[in-house]
């Protein structure tokens, strides 16, 4: 595998950091070099958050530059569009069909971009766009908190890591009580993507 650059984006409180921690750990278990850095501090208070995660043989920079991202995993649609300039030609964007309006939108002062606007931006920067009905799928599983692991399941279809390694890390990282539901969510996300592909 050549090195893979991933951006995971969302809104503070959506579990971006936990998801990226799991992914980074899985890459390490598979024997790769990993570098990852998250937005921390003030921005976590409901602000826009992003994780830069790089996987490869030997990496130097922990940050990904504009036009260098292979995979964008977005937990929120506006936060997918915001990071579009970082996408590479031929990249893929997996976007959860979720809207969290920023305050200016809640107050009616600015407009939330339409789905068309968002897709146009992502495609404009050369990315294939997959919109996944994350919130709906998580709701069907009966737990909205598993959305981040569900998105990892979707992402897993684009990475060469065996299921057992994902399972192992999820078991290690999460409290025993919620492991089963998260494994279910992982599989659900994975199958949802595979259904889209066929």
């Amino acid at each position, binding site marked *: 595998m050549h090195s893979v650059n991933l951006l995971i984006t969302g*809104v*503070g409180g959506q579990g971006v950091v936990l998801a990226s*921690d799991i992914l*980074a*750990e899985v890459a*390490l278990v598979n024997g790769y*070099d*990993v*570098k*990852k*850095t*998250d*937005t*921390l*501090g*003030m*921005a*976590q*208070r*409901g*602000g*826009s958050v992003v994780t830069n995660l790089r996987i490869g043989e030997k*990496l*130097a*920079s*922990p*940050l*990904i*530059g*504009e*036009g*260098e991202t292979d995979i964008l995993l977005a937990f929120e649609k*506006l*936060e997918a*569009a*915001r990071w*579009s*300039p970082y996408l590479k030609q031929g990249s893929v964007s997996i976007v959860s069909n979720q809207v969290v*309006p*920023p*305050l*200016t*939108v*809640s*107050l*009616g002062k*600015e*407009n*939330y*971009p339409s789905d068309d*606007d968002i897709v*146009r*931006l992502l495609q*404009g*920067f*050369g990315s294939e766009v997959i919109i996944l009905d994350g919130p709906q799928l998580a709701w069907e599983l009966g737990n*909205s908190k598993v959305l981040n692991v569900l998105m990892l399941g979707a992402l897993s279809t684009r990475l060469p890591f065996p299921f057992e390694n994902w399972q192992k890390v999820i078991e290690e990282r999460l409290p025993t009580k919620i492991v089963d539901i998260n494994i279910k969510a992982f599989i659900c996300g994975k199958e949802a993507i595979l259904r889209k592909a066929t």
Partner: protein
Amino acid sequence: MKKLLSGNEAIAYGAYHAGIRVAAAYPGTPSTEILENLARYKDIHAQWSTNEKVAFEVALGACYAGVRTLVSMKHVGLNVAADPFMAASVTGVRGGLVVVSADDPGIHSSQGEQDNRYYAIFAKVPMLEPSDSQEAYDMMPLAFEISERFDTPVMLRSTTRVSHAKTVVDINRERPSKLPEAVFRREMSKFVALPVNARRRQLLALQRMEKLAEYAESCSLNYIIRGSQELGIIASGIAFNYAREIFPEASFLKLGMSYPLPKKLIGCFAQEVKRLIVVEELEPFLEEQIKAMGLTVEGKSFVPRSGELSSGLLRTVAQKNGLLPLTENKPLALLADDLQNLPKRPPLLCPGCPHTGLFFILSSYGLRKGGADGSELGPVITGDIGCYTLAAYPCLSAMDTCACMGAGIGEALGMEKAGLKNKLVAVIGDSTFLHSGITSLLNAVYNKSSITVVVLDNRTTAMTGHQQHPGTGFTAQGEPAMAVDIVALAKSCGVANASEVSAFDIRALRMAVKEAINNPELVVLVVRGDCAAIARKKIEPMFVEQEKCVNCGVCLSLGCAALQKGNQKTQINAQLCNGCTLCQQLCSPQAIKPLHAQEGLNA
């Protein structure tokens, strides 16, 4: 054992394995997790101190007693601790003393940007700069050895992308099973900084730096990576990794020990390459010293001097400077406008935040617009640093100043003494008050002030991720401790009018604020309410009965993320709402109700 660790986790591991006995810190991004990780080890003493100066002095005492000690803080924390830091350089150490300074280039979460590498020159102490977590882990034992061998504090300077990036670390050491016990050996000429002693030790410090400069030449942390002779790059810290990414072919001089500089090594390297550049984040710290050696070197002529550096940015400026061929981001030119139009998402006070009510009242306390003569109407609200600084943003817009921790009380006093006619309200968080507000409050009482001081008591240091402090009742290591009574503390400073009010009772809060502001004497008002992010006791969410909502927008001016302007009337996002009831208390048509009332309605 290979582990994925952040720089801060690696620093903690490294220090623990190097045998530290004591660690002290005050929280501050991006340094906080160092002490949080050390606090888990029960065989060392790890403490949150009230502020960085105190933390430093605790560390100094521990090292005087002969044990290895670590003190950590964010960049501006070292400003607070600068006095004992300078003193420690004069007295020297007994057990090794490592000072971790974590800088925040790009100001992700700070009040300013500063390059703390200059503190190493200023204080005459050696400095190490890790580039990733492995280096941070590996440098720790060496840092303590240098400290003990050269009788000096050692500065380990990290930055956001070292402290907060997770990289792979081979953990290949263990904590020594036998460590020296604490002993204090008197040495008046060393430990008592009387002028006669200090003068002599000042000279020793200069000699020490000469020896350290010699040591730097052969130190394993400074090394050359031979690549193409066309381009030679000198770099330290995270900038080294950005430069390696962008110029994989170039020759490198990597400086893991970046003060004092290995001048001979730099001279040799300069001779080996045709073009010499320095890649460094923030100030031209290395560049200016290298230029002073008489060498020709480029750096800040094209690498920005402020803001965070990144591999992407370095590529762009290198292209502009002719070091790399130009590439074009065509879509960016086409789509720039669409990107510009995306709504921003600044951070917000959380739904249920105990700070919201107070700032709502301050924001609606009379007119806050400018008067006809250009002077501002209404109270001037001098602020401070913490989550509550977010109240400076619209819609609350209820903070007028924020300079550095603890500054608000002094500023209000200064405005009063300058003769300002406005009422003055200083607003300060509990952790900040205990960090550097107490002495300012005492000073205000002493100088016969009549300002209002509001202490926002959410029983935590929320902004930096909820650390304990002397008001919370727990130590850093989770042991029960005394919890200071802020009202009693204020009274003992001589404040006659000190009282507490609930953060979630709008009417009581409004009355208390009004009384305090109009009181001709100094008043301390403690606004008490648990931080929503740790209390987590989600009370029942609210909803808006659409028929009753008159769309007056009063609730929206709380700036709560759970309140959303619908197509016509206001709505509440039940997922986000934490049921604090502030909006309910403000809703005069009584359209806002707890969710269970909705079921009654539908039935």
